[in-house]
């Protein structure tokens, strides 16, 4: 399956990141980010988009080398975040990287997007216009022939793809029980600690959700509380519904067209414009 091949992981860490406290758990990191949320939202509220003339004036005061340097830092920051599949929030970007250069922020972001495109073959995509969050998506087309270099196998992605497929084939929303049953059929029991995935429930309802592959939303008025799953914004931007349908076709030895609803869904929008804006209309 080429899905795994299309997700870029960066193995080397580029820049000065906040050091994690001495702990072997990742929950401390989550708490850390959680505490910053309120503060960063304030920062974002106070960040007003500079006007074009302000940006021009700002650029005149800086050397090209300075602007290039800052652009490089933004690129590194994104690549590190993308390694963990975490979206980048504009507020964090401005606070931790852009800093004093915030008056030329749109120009920096534009140049970073160009670097992603020209050097890495990645597209900078805004997945949340309201909260200003960005992810990197593969811009290279899926080749017909497989690469001679096998990427390190990523079983999580295989499981995720199974979940996304079920959701898509079922019309885009499913109650959580269906997903748990599907996983059990794949011998991955959400109730038990799994050899490869560890806490399966946590991986599906927390990790995949934070990475924006899935949405896990409470269904109101359910007792006991039930949730439903939908595709997340990253899945919308990265995963090809056409390819899922083709795979389903192979699996069931049917023509993909026999699933008329899903076929229409998959072919209604070209994948690249499914997620909202590209770099040119960034803010």
């Amino acid at each position, binding site marked *: 399956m080429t899905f795994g091949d299309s*997700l870029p992981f*960066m193995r*080397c860490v580029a820049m000065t990141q906040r050091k*994690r406290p*001495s702990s*072997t758990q990742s929950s401390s990191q989550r708490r850390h980010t959680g505490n910053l949320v309120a503060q960063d939202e304030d920062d974002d509220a106070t960040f007003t988009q500079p006007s074009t003339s302000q940006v021009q004036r700002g650029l005149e005061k800086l050397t090209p080398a300075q602007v290039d340097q800052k652009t*490089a830092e933004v690129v590194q920051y994104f*690549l590190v975040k993308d*390694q963990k599949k975490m979206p980048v929030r504009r507020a964090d970007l401005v606070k931790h990287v852009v800093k004093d250069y915030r008056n030329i922020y749109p120009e920096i972001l534009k140049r970073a997007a160009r670097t992603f495109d020209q050097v890495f073959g990645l597209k900078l995509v805004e997945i949340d216009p309201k909260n200003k969050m960005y992810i990197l998506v593969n811009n290279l087309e899926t080749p017909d022939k497989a690469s001679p270099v096998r990427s390190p196998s990523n079983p999580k992605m295989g499981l995720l793809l199974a979940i996304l497929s079920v959701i898509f084939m079922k019309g885009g929303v499913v109650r959580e029980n269906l997903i748990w049953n599907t996983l059990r059929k794949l011998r991955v029991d959400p109730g038990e600690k799994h050899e490869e995935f560890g806490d399966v429930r946590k991986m599906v309802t927390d990790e995949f959700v934070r990475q924006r592959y899935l949405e896990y939303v409470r269904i109101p008025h359910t007792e006991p509380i039930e949730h439903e799953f939908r595709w997340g914004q990253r899945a919308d931007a990265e995963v090809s519904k056409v390819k899922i349908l083709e795979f389903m076709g192979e699996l069931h030895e049917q023509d993909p067209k026999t699933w008329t609803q899903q076929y229409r869904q998959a072919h209604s929008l070209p994948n690249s414009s499914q997620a909202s804006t590209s770099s040119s209309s960034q803010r």
Partner: protein
Amino acid sequence: MSRQMGESHRRFLQTMMVSGVIDEQAAKALYQYCCETHHTQYAPDKLEDFIDTINSRLQPMFMQIRKGMSENNGLQYYALVNMAETDITRMSSDYADNELELFRKTLDLIVCSENGKASSTDILNSTDSMTTRKMKKSETEHLLSRLVHDKWLSEKRGEYTLSTRCIIEMEPYIRTMYQDHIKVCHICRNIAFQCQICENPTCGIKIHNPCVARYFKGKSEPRCPSCDDFWPHEIPEVKRPHSQSRR
């Protein structure tokens, strides 16, 4: 002379980003594949130029695709490395403070050892002198297996060595930090951890195992290239590249 970056370069770079380190044969196959997939002109002997083009665009981000030799099989490998950090903080987003401290201690053990290895026992014992939060035995073992999985260390029979990727990436840092302790191969002039040493006390030159294999190949009586004393160590076989392009 750097050409423009094209789709073939980007695909090569994306593969490097996913794989981290690949052997030369895989790199050549990948280069051909990328050129053919994107209908770019392919010249078999131009891999270095191809990589130079990518490197010229990576340079502002302090990233490079660098080449280095494996101390185990003598083959050349390409790794995507971070040039920005002068410390091991390059790993800092993946590892906690105390984990990094233990990695540094492991590095100490390996660099200062004669055979370029650190036993798991020695590594476990070094946790006694940790200044950050101490690690239990199980935590240390778990960390070591993560370091192997993330391709910083290699493990064989309970002994840990630096992976090829680690050596390629950290050579500048190690040269600076351990100036007086590092060994340099007399043949290829690169940093050496696992190597053979001339037994002549006034000589003591070091040669990588694969460099020994190549240098002494076919010689009936191996003699030290520096002091001409008899070279007493077992001469390994020259390893040939195999067709599998894993790792």
